[in-house]
């Protein structure tokens, strides 16, 4: 089974936030309001942050796109009392909204601020995607939909649970099914998460970290890379290439 990871080249990234917007559109993540923004109650599965250092005129700003790190040793999974958050076989850390109690231990445990608590009932927006989620009865990549992880209530959210980035696993699973049925497509090339697809500078790459031929593996072999907060032994699979 693949070990999905994402590589983000900070030298190419210019902070345009197409990734954040594509994520919102792809996953029906509700937009916030000024009130929620001031209280950090608005939801982002993906956010671009800017970190400033130095004093005028020696100023340096790092612009860092922040999806979930999909840690190999995810602290959020360790603390979840209801096993609502777990790591799939392919390494993607997902959240089962139906099991989630809303205790928010995972939000406290996550060193990256990648998790959001859903404080409100989502309004119906006309542009939301009724075609989500993959309503698959079949077994894909060793995962049985319906039986193992349950159908995913994407078009509509549940108030009082925690949500997070999924590396757009619905796209990956759909592609796996297509591949099973003989389609000539490659995950990481033809099928990528929405943020990777939307990046106008092509700063983001997605693929199998265990496949030495994949773009992500080659990039990691050719450049210095950073894993955020490596000292916390989370071993993230979202990896950055510095400038």
């Amino acid at each position: 089974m693949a070990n999905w990871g994402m590589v983000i080249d900070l030298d190419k990234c210019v902070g345009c936030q197409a990734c954040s917007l594509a994520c919102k559109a792809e996953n029906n993540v509700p937009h916030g309001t000024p009130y929620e923004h001031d209280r950090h109650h608005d939801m982002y599965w993906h956010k671009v942050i800017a970190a400033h250092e130095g004093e005028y005129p020696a100023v340096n700003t790092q612009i860092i796109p922040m999806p979930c790190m999909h840690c190999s040793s995810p602290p959020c999974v360790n603390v979840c009392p209801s096993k609502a958050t777990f790591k799939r076989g392919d390494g993607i850390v997902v959240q089962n909204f139906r099991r989630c109690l809303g205790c928010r231990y995972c939000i406290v445990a996550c060193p990256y601020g990648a998790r959001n608590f859903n404080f409100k009932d989502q309004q119906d927006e006309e542009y939301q995607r009724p075609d989500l989620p993959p309503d698959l009865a079949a077994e894909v990549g060793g995962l049985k939909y319906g039986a193992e992880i349950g159908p995913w209530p994407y078009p509509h959210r549940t108030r009082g649970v925690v949500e997070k980035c999924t590396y757009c696993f619905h796209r990956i699973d759909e592609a796996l099914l297509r591949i099973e049925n003989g389609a000539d497509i490659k995950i990481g090339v033809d099928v990528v998460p929405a943020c990777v697809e939307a990046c106008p500078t092509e700063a983001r790459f997605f693929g199998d970290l265990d496949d030495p031929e994949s773009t992500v593996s080659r990039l990691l072999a050719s450049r210095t890379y950073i894993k955020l907060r490596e000292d916390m032994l989370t071993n993230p699979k979202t990896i950055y290439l510095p400038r």
Partner: protein
Amino acid sequence: MNETAADKPNSPEPKRSNGFKISRRAFLGVSGAAAAVLAVVLALKRPKFGPDQGFETQETNGLARDENGLPAEVLIPTSCLNCPTRCAVRVRRVETTLGKTKVVRIFGNPASTYSDGRCCSRSHVGLQVLYNAGRFSMPLRRRADVEKGRAVSYENDFEEIGWDEALQEVAGHIQGTTPDRLLILEGLNTTSNEDLIHQFALACGTPNLFKEEGLETDADRRGKMLADGLGNSGYELVSEDGTSAKYIISFSSGIVESERPLARNLRLWGKMRRELPNRTKVVSFDPRHSVTASRADEWHPINPGSEGALAMAIAHVIIAEGLYDADFIANHAEGFEAFRTVALAHQFSPESVSEACGVDAETITKVAREFAQARPAVAWSGEAATGWAYGTFASHAIYCLNALAGSIDVPGGIVYQQYPPYAPMPALPVSQTGITYYDMDQAAGGMATAIGFNSNLIMSVPESGEGAKWDQRLKDLYYVHVGPARSEMAAYADIILPTCTYLEDWGYESAIPGSGYAEARIKQPVIDPRDESRPPARVIFDIATLLGQAAAFVPPSSGVTGDSQSFPEQFAAYRTSPFIAWDDFKRVGVWKGGAYSYRSYAFGNFRFHSEGLERVRNVDLPREEAPYGLELAIYRPVLEIRGGSQNFPWAQEMYLVMHGRGWKNLVELNRETAHRLGIGEGDEVIVESAFGEIEGEAAVIEGMRPGVVAIATGQGHFASGEFADDIGCNPMEVMGTEYDEESGQPTLFSTRVGIRKA
């Protein structure tokens, strides 16, 4: 947690709670049965589009499944219009099980090589432009007894009227106005609609057509035209065969933030940084540590308005050290000797300019040497460099650096944009229209009637605050607003004609300067126009018909029928017929012209203009004295949607990426300046000038030249809707009017302000 059957994904239009509670076991049984019924319903009642929709080649049912049982892709090629770059996009449309059509995603179109099939963050906001709650559903007429003003209530101040009545009234007003008292305002519009508006102005016989894009670009354009006379020059940066600019000097330009063509700049930035053999070096001179400055290799903070002087100092070094491209100068340029004399004068020596621009002479000399020796090298003039009273000359000085480095008409340098060979529109008795901001500002008091096509004038001109010049003028005019949604200009309207958005419109777009080669992109409706809204082309055609000018747009031989409903599509098909079949255009969405031929020097000789250049030396430095010692600089963040409204929550909640702030713009100050003024982070402050005052939240930062106040544009709306109104402030309201004398552009950077705590 309680769930109902409707909670199951893929069920029709699910509702979350109806107060009906059942146990989990019962739920499973019920939902299983419901799913079975649903599957049957889905199979029997799979909605389809009729053949009249024109997308027969695609599987159009969003919830239709392919052979793998997965949703089939439905992608309709069209183009964006959230900024003037107008990228080719593909729009995903689905149909719900209830037969409701939804537009759910916007992607780039890989057929467009202009930006490698990429589009920027603004394009995604198109969904909220389409489904904006502030859209007009019917033509509106101001009630007789209601005065115009900022405190508008669209429900109470206007009455709904029919299209026929509205069009009759507008046509009557135009007929009752002499052409020289008729003003036509053009905001951001589709290229095809711009062509129609231009022709419409000619048909009305008015010279008073004002393009609002000129508020930002006229001085820059004029300065470049002094040299080449063409007005279509663009920065290619990376040629099709992969030759890239090796060195870029950004003169206060937001190359990856706001400079057009934005999506192309972003894509090429990625290429220049990591994908090509020679990494491009970028040096940013900017008073503000902008996104571009932060991504550049070097940032040198300079005094606002000193970019032109700095360019001349760089020219001074290049000429003095003989580093210029002698071959280009000898064979393709004129006026160099006079330019050389001006540039070598003492006032433009690095030592002399150093004080004015606040960059030390060694840095200027170093950058000049690097620039001249790394070819091709590009000097990019930003809006903040040219929005001054001497803006044309500043633009020209910067442009001349490109000539000195031999970057004119070479791969990766400056190229001259080609345009698609559109079919002709008829010649009319009046053949000239178009005025500068200066002319309009002088004549506006005498105007009687104005028509604004998606105009955003009141938000983008100086002296626009309550009770100020433009507020009063718009109250006095009979104003017809033609646009899709609530906006500040609509608040001043006597009649509002609701047009559809760009995602519901027919038309074509031309690629703006940047690529060299021509590219055309289609606009086709991805969904039927909402409510009673109509394509702008149809509105223009209908008014012209009432004025007896229906023949002004296409020649009789074009085959376009006089049917108003089908006119927009037929017009676009006729205009693009010389180079692409309409069905192919609808299917692919993009047409690309032949390869660009470099070194053709279409302008003849590059003219070094030396008269008046010394004016760029008149830099007014920030001062400490009260009351107005600080320099006000505006900037345009990437998520400022350029279509006239900002009522889009996605754009609003990520508005200022450098500050991590949304739903706001900030009054940005250097820490030292803030300390001197006794202002702290997050303080509510009042920014005041001789022309007005605004209130905002202070942001105390390191990345700002002391003595400068920067405020992002795009906020301070008052009549656009719940996600835009009363958020932030509009810096235009404190600006005074001054012009660039050559181009008539208002100077958007020369106002001085004072700041105090609120």
